[in-house]
């Protein structure tokens, strides 16, 4: 080969390599093929959670060749109810965070029972008996993801700067809140906007206070609809929440921000400099709302303590929640996906990304990332655990309860005036409760699975 040819070949090579580099330098685009027989999944996960779940589904597709389409909606629960009530096309699988909604769907016979093979996979991977998964031989819920609520997030550097310590009792928390106000720091970040579930963050606060002040037994009674909302203990929990968080000067941006800000943006002022608030009570999944590269832990950017109990002689209770899966179709592809999601590797892709906790016994604690491991260790402790009550209420009761809370919060007249109207608001909720009083017994089996399994 002559030198000229070599030179030309080299020139063409360099040119091609440069074009490849430039091609990659600009954004990469790849079309997905639309598949008519894909398994469809409908849920509430958006943003990073939606992408993480999509990665889980991609694992399944890689293994089986079965395509899956996931759609997530901010108005997920009302959307799902509407799909059923209006006879719209139903998904093959739905991700449901509320046992109350699952009971409704099961009673309307729109969901199909778990396949026997799925029940087997669940029994193999979760600390559940066959009877717990499928009471009387029929189960509907596949527990998929669990959350720890009851966490108070704060920035250790800000606490250290002011000489504050995480409190060990609820009264200590009240004192700390007052101390923060005196120091000119707004104590709390808080927001309620969440589409058709607006108000659930307020409910979480009240649930946490109720289980601490009145005890788990009273809480369970309330969860099962056996305790009126006008019961003094419930009223006290609402009032305590009002006094602690919603008082003028206690919450970042005032009531206006509380009602107009979406829950995922509620915590944002915590990370500002100077901080817009000193604390935010949020669930474990709040980590996906943190700014990128935020580190968690005593030496990290942000840390948490469990909302303290009435006294510090025993660990404070934990409020838990979770998301389960139900299926609307029992064709083989759907069952295969349910079995994959119930199995030992059904959450792997999400665990790798972080922000995924599972009740599976087949997943070793070491498999979690450092932040998720902190939550898993909490769950493995000997704390009393209760399930999120508002998620367990039947939809009409849940809607009435959340509406009452949001109406109370949006009342701009101040805490004392709001408290005066509280009784009337809670009486309205009780009226709805009376209509569905006997419905709660249906939920027993499902709630048990949510609480113990996931």
């Amino acid at each position: 080969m002559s030198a000229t040819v070599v030179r030309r070949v080299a020139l063409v090579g360099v040119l091609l390599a440069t074009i490849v580099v430039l091609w990659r330098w600009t954004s990469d685009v790849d079309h997905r093929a639309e598949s008519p027989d894909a398994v469809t999944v409908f849920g509430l996960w958006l943003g990073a959670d939606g992408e993480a779940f999509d990665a889980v589904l991609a694992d399944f597709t890689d293994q089986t060749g079965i395509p899956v389409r996931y759609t997530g909606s901010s108005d997920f629960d009302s959307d799902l109810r509407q799909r059923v009530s209006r006879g719209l096309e139903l998904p093959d699988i739905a991700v449901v965070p509320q046992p109350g909604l699952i009971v409704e769907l099961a009673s309307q016979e729109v969901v199909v029972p778990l396949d026997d093979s799925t029940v087997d996979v669940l029994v193999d991977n979760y600390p559940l008996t066959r009877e717990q998964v499928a009471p009387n031989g029929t189960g509907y819920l596949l527990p998929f993801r669990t959350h720890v609520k009851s966490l108070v997030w704060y920035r250790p550097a800000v606490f250290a700067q002011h000489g504050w310590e995480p409190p060990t009792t609820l009264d200590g928390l009240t004192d700390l809140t007052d101390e923060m106000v005196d120091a000119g720091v707004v104590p709390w970040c808080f927001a309620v906007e969440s589409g058709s579930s607006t108000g659930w963050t307020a409910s979480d606060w009240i649930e946490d206070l109720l289980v601490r002040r009145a005890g788990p037994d009273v809480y369970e009674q309330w969860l099962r609809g056996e305790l009126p909302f006008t019961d003094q203990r419930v009223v006290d929990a609402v009032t305590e929440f009002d006094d602690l968080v919603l008082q003028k000067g206690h919450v970042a941006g005032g009531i206006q921000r509380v009602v107009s800000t979406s829950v995922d943006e509620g915590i944002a002022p915590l990370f500002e400099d100077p901080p817009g608030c000193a604390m935010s009570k949020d669930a474990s999944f709040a980590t996906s709302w943190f700014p990128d590269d935020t580190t968690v832990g005593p030496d990290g950017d942000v840390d948490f303590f469990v909302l303290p109990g009435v006294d510090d002689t025993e660990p404070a209770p934990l409020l838990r929640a979770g998301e389960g899966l139900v299926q609307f179709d029992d064709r083989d592809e759907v069952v295969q996906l349910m079995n994959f999601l119930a199995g030992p590797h059904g959450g792997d892709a999400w665990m790798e990304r972080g922000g995924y906790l599972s009740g599976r016994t087949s997943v070793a604690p070491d498999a979690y990332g450092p932040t998720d491991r902190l939550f898993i260790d909490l769950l493995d402790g000997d704390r009393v655990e209760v399930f999120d009550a508002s998620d367990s209420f039947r939809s009409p009761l849940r809607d009435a309860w959340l509406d009452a809370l949001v109406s109370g919060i949006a009342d701009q007249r101040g805490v004392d005036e709001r408290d005066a109207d509280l009784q009337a608001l809670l009486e309205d909720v009780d009226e709805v409760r009376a209509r569905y009083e006997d419905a709660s017994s249906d939920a027993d089996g499902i709630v048990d699975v949510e609480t113990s399994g996931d």
Partner: protein
Amino acid sequence: MTDEQPSSGTGDPAPLDDATRPDPSPPRLTALGTVVGWMGSVLPSEPTQEAIEAVDDLIPTGDAQREFIARFCSLVALSSAVAAFGLLSDSGAVVIGAMLIAPLMTPIMGASAAVVTADNRRLVRAVLVILLGTGLAVAVGWLTSLIAGGTVIDPSLLPQEIQNRTFPGLLDLGVAISAGAAGGYILPRRSAFAALPGVGIAVALVPPLATVGITAELGLSTESRNAFLLYLTNLAAIVFSAGIALLLSGFRPRAGLGRGALRTRLLITALAVVLVAVPLARHTGSVVEDLQLQGAVVNAVEAWDPEARIVEISVDAVDDEADVELLIAGRGDPEPVWALAEEIRSRFGRPVNLVVLYDGNERYEVTAR
């Protein structure tokens, strides 16, 4: 007369370089040679004395050089400052003013003439002046942003004048090639100098460089890179197309270098144009994708609810996904928004992240993957 154009020069014209003398050797009849030979018969075979003087005056040598550099640097710094303030205040008029002050066109035309005449010494001089001007313009943009930018603009909401320079496409290449050719046509014809400000405005060089500085200071590396790509596009296209225009005006390599020298140099500039065209084509492709996405969204809304009216639409087909934001006015409660997202996904064939603001107060967010 502005300084974006080549300076017309004052005092005695510099002596005629060997480089600008016409090549007396007869053309060989390759395919290209045939075309060039034919064009040679209808176009001037050698440049006029006026043309040679205009090219010689671009970058003076000797004593005049120091004064030229000082004036060049002052005008680059001033025009970049004017451009940076115009960009930050989102004022198109001020940015155009900066284009008219900017003197960068002079060394670039010098480089183009040096390519055509195969004059390496002149080329090196021109490239050094271009590098000096480039660095200075970016530095002034960066400094202006450091002093004023952070307080007046939000990096997540860049002024339109800056955004316009952070996503160049093939159309920008077309503008640069046409305007570069115009510059190459005007340069040897002093009678046509009145048209030069138009060339300066069409292929703005300093505003993209000021944008590079501003966006770099704001930590926006992608925007900075893209603004620099726009500058490179203009640079490569002007050198190439002005070179062709000068060639057609009769400029040739000096005697003894032959056609090979010209061919190699033109090939290199053409290659530079091809290289910048790759990312530009990519950008243009993504603009086309955005248009396809917009079409899919409009049709999907029509199918979703024939009574719904799109008040505002914002689409972005980025990476492997489509981000869509819609402000919709409709009658009564909206149809299920998840169904709209699935309709868009089905029509566009990619995962869709959809935000709908319905009747101004109801917000829905859906992802259809």
